[in-house]
């Protein structure tokens, strides 16, 4: 179970908004966060990752406290067991595909996982290529595989498919669902695309002006 209580004043293009959320996730769930841009969707993910500090809040993941501002607890991103995929392909250009994956693997971990991961994303042939030579979809597949290598408790996807064309998106959605299922992840995916979020998530949170205005089945929200 994941317990999230966050409060932060965000300054955006449309003025200040007060982000205030209080929600729970079951482990194994895949939840979508939907809402207009500037509503604070990415900020929630960044606070979960430890890349942004809320004004006030508590984050507890499977009984482990990651953040508790009242008691001065704030684990650094390095110490939160997360995988994160960003909208911009954040692969490192100085490393090949394989090296990008190796970099994510912790020192003592089994290297056979690397081969397995390359096979899952169908990129054995391209293992020694530099990421600049890959298509957008291939890059994002590597980024997804890289995020999986630490076998995270929580997978955070921040508009992971926004830069891709339709075909690529469908293909990547399959990979996301497959990873989520096979690795028994708890996944939080941010998107502003209704079709995509319906396809990916079992449960939907709709964020407007900094608070959740809906929590339920994606279909019910979009057909109402």
């Amino acid at each position, binding site marked *: 179970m994941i317990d999230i209580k966050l409060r932060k004043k965000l300054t955006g293009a449309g003025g200040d908004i007060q982000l205030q959320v209080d929600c729970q996730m079951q482990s194994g769930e895949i939840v979508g966060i939907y809402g207009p841009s500037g509503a604070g969707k990415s900020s929630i993910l960044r606070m979960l990752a*430890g890349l942004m500090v809320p004004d006030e809040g508590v984050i507890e993941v499977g009984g482990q406290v990651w953040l508790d501002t009242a008691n001065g607890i704030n684990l650094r*991103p390095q110490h939160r067991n*997360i995988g994160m995929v960003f909208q911009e392909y954040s692969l490192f250009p100085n490393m090949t595909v394989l090296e990008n994956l190796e970099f994510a693997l912790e020192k003592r971990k089994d290297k056979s996982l690397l081969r397995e991961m390359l096979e899952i994303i169908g990129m054995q042939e391209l293992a020694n290529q530099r990421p600049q030579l890959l298509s957008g979809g291939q890059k994002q597949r590597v980024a997804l595989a890289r995020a999986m290598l*630490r076998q995270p408790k929580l997978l955070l996807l921040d508009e992971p498919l926004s830069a891709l064309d339709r075909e690529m998106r469908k293909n990547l959605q399959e990979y996301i669902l497959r990873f989520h299922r096979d690795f028994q992840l708890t996944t939080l995916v941010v998107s502003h695309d209704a079709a995509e979020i319906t396809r990916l998530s079992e449960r939907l949170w709709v964020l407007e002006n900094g608070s959740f205005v809906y929590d339920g089945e994606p279909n019910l929200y979009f057909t109402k």
Partner: protein
Amino acid sequence: MLETAPFYLTVKLALLTTMILFVLSIPLGYWLAFSRFRVKFMVEALVSLPLVLPPTVLGFYLLLAFSPENALGKFLDNYFDLRLVFTFPGLVVASVIYSLPFMVQPLKSGFASIPKAWLDAAYTMGKSRRVTLRRVLLPNMKNAMLTGAVLTFAHTVGEFGVILMVGGNIPEETRVISVAIYNEVEAMNYAVANTYSLILVGFSFLVLMVTYFINHQKNSLLSYD
């Protein structure tokens, strides 16, 4: 008569200055690029000061500071047996201060050019700042590192005012090429001054040409585009 010592001293000084500044400027450039410290602008102004000050001003104050008559000079003399006025080590310290912006600015731009998402990705993979710096940042800013090193080296070779103030004109100790040229002109040995000068022009042109050549070779050496 043409001597070899000034060449040797100049190259030694430029190499030492470049190496020391490289090591110092990586943390400083990193801090300037990423810190949100409120009075950062003051540090930036301080780092850039040698760009606008006449070298004689800088040299004058360094001379005063290094003088064994004064606190810093006395301290160095007493505790480290180090004399910085009219000595080669003094030239190195002065050059490091004088050339600081030439190394820091390119490195700072290099750090600033790295997409923020790369850092976030590395941190969420459990990598420390230090590992991220070594494995992700530096390898992706080789252009900036080369530019900083070449500018610093070339700027140190071209130094005159600060060196004359802090180091004077002592053969085989502080008489670098620029000072040797001045010395020969003073003595009306225009032919020797001309030879020194031509060598310096040729050398500087060559260094810059090689740098620009490498910078244009986008493919393999420096960049991964």
